[in-house]
């Protein structure tokens, strides 16, 4: 399962965008958009997120 963003927790800081090796994440002004077809499930976005707003869900 690709990464998921919790929009309640997210502070829209762009950290996850900066580490995503697949270029799968876009930060619009107050919205994180994940291109599920690009995500390679590497977990980098989960590790960098200062507030725990990114999750990789197991199938």
């Amino acid at each position, binding site marked *: 399962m690709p990464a998921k963003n919790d929009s309640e927790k997210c*502070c*829209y*800081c*762009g*950290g*996850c*965008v*900066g*580490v*995503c*090796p697949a*270029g799968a994440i*876009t*930060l*619009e*002004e107050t919205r994180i958009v994940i291109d599920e077809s690009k995500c390679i499930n590497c977990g*980098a976005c989960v*590790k*960098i*997120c*200062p*507030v*725990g707003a990114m999750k990789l869900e197991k199938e």
Partner: protein
Amino acid sequence: MQEFDAIIVGAGPAGLAAARKLAEAKMNVICLEKKQEIGVPKRCAEGLGGGWFERLGIKPDKRWAVREIEGAALYAPSGKKLELRFGKTAGYVLERRVFEKELAKQAVNAGAKIRVKHPVTSAVRENGKVKIEAGVRGDEEEYSAPLVLACDGVETQTARMLGLNTVNKLNDIDSGYQYEMAGIDYEGDDLINLFFGEDGTTEGTAKSYLDKFVESHPGLKQGSIVEVNAGAVPVGGFLDDMTADNLLVAGDAAHHVNPIHGGGIGLAMEGARIASDIAIGAHNAGDYSHKFLQKYNPIWYEKRGNQLKSILKRRHLFESLSDENLETLVNSLTGDDVLKIAEGELIESAKIVGKKLIKYPGLTKIMLKYLK
């Protein structure tokens, strides 16, 4: 299609410094910014070292340089502290919203154009130029220029769109979380208080560490949080090449950040100014090739990049110290000693370590390994 001599992506300190410089050189330049307001929301603690004002030729102004910093207090895990007083103003706390608007005004007065709420969504090369699409969905406009300056911060995608990989590796990026608080009780009001410990942040989020920290300090716990900021800080992973055909990268996008304290405002402006010098040269020569633009790299490294590399080694040193080592350092060194070591003065640092830490051979060995 709107034609320009150069397009700058991002209106942070880097983009705004570049916009002003290129406009002053009579280049037709536009700065495209995603956010709807320049400087807001900030992802920053807004500290700027005193030296930067001189280096960048700007005067602190009460409207945005709102508070003076006199020095720093370093706390070991036991709570014992070491004070660093600089004898003159060590820096200022900025109001970035006001500061960046001022930078924007200066750029516009020099002749630059700025567009907010214009996220860049695509950049492709076409007939020796770069075609950029920017604007809110459904309302995008096309822009074209032979030169693009990617100043789009930590989340930069512009360079990647033009074939230059600037992705941050996890080891080279810090996860940051901060509270602005009111009603706290802390001594040393005019100092930056820095707390050290070996308890690194590999488990749990930055937020959970900060909450734990506030909870365990009564002077902080009694206060109220009036603003929350989060962000990631590139603290290493320097790029050997910050250019490609038609492209220069500066600021956070090029990882221009101090690897020890994460300060990047001054470095972003300095990097952007150097990149602008190259852009002006390319414009005059009509040469936007990678070969021409890559002159930027050695100039940056000579002026600042090499110093950042040696500061990065100091960071690795701090990270390798145990709580016990930190106590020994606070007990053995003076504020002055610490300043010299942190600034990366090699011979001075080795002398200090040799003299003051002679009773602690284990720690001396670690220190000398990283000071080399």
